[in-house]
């Protein structure tokens, strides 16, 4: 499969009153046609900022993409003109946001909002756009889709609203769908329904997906590859099976340790990682995970590790080989 997106060395910073926040510190990844990439990490690890930087949706000021490239169809999104990036947003790369409650405009009807991307990006009439919107709503499982076009967002439940959001993001049949924690605000049963819906739509429409979550459990059955983020770095990157069977970075191991497993027999205590992710106010010159890491050695405090190849298509950024406990 051909590569459609290639991000290299992405760095994004925010200038705040407390200082410069180094939110993303050199992130690289790529995405193939029809592939699903999971980006995992706790809150504040820089997942949202990474994808928002690509689409240039970072509020500026205070945010600024300071380095890197994001090649899409031979064009660097980070250097594209406002007009060029505008034509890509919503039509070729579209987003689903975390909170379906606040991500809709409360005073515009659902039909209007769902049809909007089509009205912006193609020369259809409003009526045609509305018809298509009704089809999309039916496709994501909204009952009586046509009648509901004139309803307002508050007349939908959270789960239904997220379905509508997905319909809205897919109405222009984009090549890439970026879903930023689309299930975090929903009940567990609804979460599963949304994941199933997206899987079905992916099979029907064939778009590539970047699925952001802090829940490794959700993407096990969804993603082809997983990138684990911490402190604005991708600290481990592997195909999904490889990552689950062979986690290498202490942070990934910690995340998996806090996940209940059905395939491991015997009773095992769920563990959690002590502490919270850092807010990096200076350029990280040591491993950002070191303060919370039980494997940390002196070197972790002095030098930030680069990516090591630890398996097939599998990299991890850690000075310690966690299998043997020895320094690399």
């Amino acid at each position, binding site marked *: 499969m051909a590569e459609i997106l290639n991000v290299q060395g992405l760095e994004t910073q925010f200038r705040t009153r407390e200082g410069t926040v180094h939110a993303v510190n050199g992130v690289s990844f790529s995405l193939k046609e029809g592939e699903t990439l999971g980006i995992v990490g706790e809150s504040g690890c820089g997942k949202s900022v990474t994808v928002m930087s690509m689409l240039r*949706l970072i509020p500026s000021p205070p945010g600024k993409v300071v380095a890197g490239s994001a090649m899409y169809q031979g064009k660097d999104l980070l250097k594209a003109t406002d007009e060029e990036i505008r034509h890509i947003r*919503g039509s070729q790369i579209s987003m689903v*946001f975390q909170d379906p409650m*606040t991500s*809709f405009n*409360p*005073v*515009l009807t659902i039909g209007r909002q769902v049809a*909007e991307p089509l009205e912006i990006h193609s020369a259809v009439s409003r009526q045609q756009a509305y018809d298509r919107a009704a089809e999309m709503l039916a496709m994501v499982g909204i009952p009586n889709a046509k009648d509901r076009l004139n309803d307002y967002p508050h007349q939908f439940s959270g789960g239904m609203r997220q379905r509508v959001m997905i319909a809205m993001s897919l109405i222009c049949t984009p090549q890439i769908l970026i879903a930023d924690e689309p299930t975090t605000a929903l009940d567990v049963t609804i979460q599963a329904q949304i994941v199933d819906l997206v899987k079905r739509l992916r099979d029907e429409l064939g778009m590539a997906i970047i699925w952001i979550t802090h829940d490794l459990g959700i993407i096990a059955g969804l993603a082809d590859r997983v990138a684990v983020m911490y402190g604005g770095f991708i600290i481990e990157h592997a195909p999904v099976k490889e990552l689950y069977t062979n986690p290498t970075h202490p942070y990934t191991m910690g995340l998996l340790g806090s996940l209940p497993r059905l395939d491991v027999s015997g009773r095992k205590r769920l563990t959690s990682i002590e502490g919270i992710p850092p807010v990096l106010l200076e350029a990280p010159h040591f491993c950002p995970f070191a303060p919370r890491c039980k494997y940390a050695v002196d070197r972790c405090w002095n030098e930030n590790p680069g990516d090591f190849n630890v398996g097939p298509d599998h990299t991890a950024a850690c000075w310690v080989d966690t299998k043997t406990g020895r320094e690399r």
Partner: protein
Amino acid sequence: MGRFVVRRLLWLIPVILVVSGITFILMHSAPGGPWDRDLSARQVDPNTQRLLNEYYGLDKPLWRQFVAYIIGDYNKDGSFKCGLVCGNLGPSYRQRGLTIQQILFMPPEGKNFFYSRFGYSIRLGVYAMLFAVILGVPAGIISALKQNTWADYISLFIVTIGISVPNFVIAIFLIIIFASWLHVVSIVPRSWDQVDVWILPAIILGFGTMARTARLTRASMLEVMRMDYVRTARAKGMAERLVIFRHMLKNSLIPVVTMLGPSLAALVTGSFIIETMFGFPGMGRAYVTAIGQRDYSMIMGTTLIYAVLVALANLSVDLTYVLLDPRIRLD
């Protein structure tokens, strides 16, 4: 919705009773009466005063006068004269032969309603309001979009003046500049039929409202700009201009539009200083004059009209909310 409006209108009854009760007590606690004249002028002789009091029922105990004002009383000849409940605001004690309704609402011969005292005040209020909105709303929007730039600071400077300096002080400055120095307006116009003589009073009256409108618009716009749905709109690939007009404006103007009613009521009822300064033939100046002359029924009538205006304006807030925000329902 209909029931809500009816309920709120019924609430007007106790409001009117309380307002008229308080006004009545305050008014009669002030020394003097409607027949007093300037010390330099010829006084009304005591015998005539007694007859007048008797004729207007001012010789009766106060509670009886109050009941007569609200409900009505029997005339000497036994016929019943209905009071406020029938919409009668009573006869003026100083402008003989005219009722309060006639003084406030009757236009001069051959003119339409807007040439009555009430009409003049409404017009001045509306012009002031137009000035406030046409200047205040765009100023607030630009300030928010260009937050912390010179445009924002200039607008904030004017807003701060408008909010903190009372309008009669602004009036004096503007009169000195435009009338005394530049001679572009006359302070006491001979006729209010020309357009240009309205400009200065309307601007002065509307200045504070303009400032508050700009501040409210700016604050509400800044809040809306941070909203998730604005980010959603950008993520759809919408042009920034459209994001502002389609997704930000309506949301950020909801609080501003709901304030229009109360602002207008405040301008119409709050214009008495400006009206007095400019010798304006409106309700506000008539009110101030009536207070000085102890024209009891005129004071009562005007106060009640003000109270009703304010109450209706407050009702309009809820109704405009329902019109503008689909999330809000009244029941």
